[in-house]
């Protein structure tokens, strides 16, 4: 593929991400926003591929789309009737809080844009000394080796952390007494 097509597909997926993300936050119906969140996650995985992070892309799909999203859906579905029915619709129109939120988001966006555009990324020190990943590299192999050597401690801590989160969530969500 030449540059042109790559960029078109990239921009298509970028647009998909952005549009679906926007729809997620604007939609009143929770179910629809969760499903659009699903679309966003998949589009993000596609974007990861363009950054030559194939393992991360798959991990994203498996963990997020297959784990988090399903968890959300199930939690939402299996909750009480009242939980379902107490979904307040977002107040239509622009309220003050909405206005503040939009303002902050736009402001932050403006700041980030300004910083990003002003920065000459290609001429950063570490960028010039970096060794980029080629498309023919085996990132899985890379990730595996790094996990067991450089990032071993975080990996173990992460597993303990996951166990903590598991126990904690299970305890919090138990029926009967409250914590």
């Amino acid at each position, binding site marked *: 593929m030449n540059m042109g097509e790559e960029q078109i597909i990239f921009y298509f997926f970028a647009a998909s*991400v*952005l549009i679906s*993300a926007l729809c997620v*936050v604007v939609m009143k119906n929770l179910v629809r*926003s*969760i499903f659009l*969140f699903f679309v*966003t*996650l998949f589009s993000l995985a596609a974007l990861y591929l*363009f950054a*030559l*992070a194939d*393992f*991360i892309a798959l991990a994203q799909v498996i*963990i*997020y789309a297959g*784990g*988090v999203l399903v*968890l*959300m859906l199930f*939690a939402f579905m299996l909750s*009480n009737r*009242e*939980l379902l029915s*107490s*979904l*307040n619709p*977002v*107040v239509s129109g622009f309220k003050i809080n*909405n206005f*503040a*939120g*939009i303002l902050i*988001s*736009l402001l932050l*966006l403006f700041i*980030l*844009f300004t910083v*990003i*555009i002003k920065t000459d*990324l290609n001429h950063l020190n570490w*960028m010039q000394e*970096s*060794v*980029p*990943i080629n498309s023919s590299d085996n990132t899985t192999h*890379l*990730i595996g080796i*790094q996990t067991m050597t*450089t*990032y071993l401690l975080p990996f173990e801590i*992460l597993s303990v952390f*996951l166990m903590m*989160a598991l126990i*904690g*969530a*299970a305890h*919090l*969500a138990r029926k009967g007494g*409250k914590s």
Partner: protein
Amino acid sequence: MIPIAHFMLISACLFCTGLYAVLTRRNAIQVLIGIEFMINAAVLNFVAFGRYDKISGGGQMFALFAIVLAAAGVAVALAIILNVYKYFKSIDPTKTNTLKD
């Protein structure tokens, strides 16, 4: 190749969208989704910068860790939301205002 700036811009947009969702949504689950957006934007950023790091692959590693942490966070957050609902009978964050003066 796609310039890294594009990735960063998309990440910035996604982040701001997530921030908007956190600040203005009346449903705790939608707030959670907003948080997820912000984490995903960070992950995108990690991945974009990780392309230039073959030596230690830090970007992709941290992206992995971030995804795992986000998932754990979602689980705990949902449990919390459940408890909050039991007490306040609502998942509207504006209703949980007992800390009000």
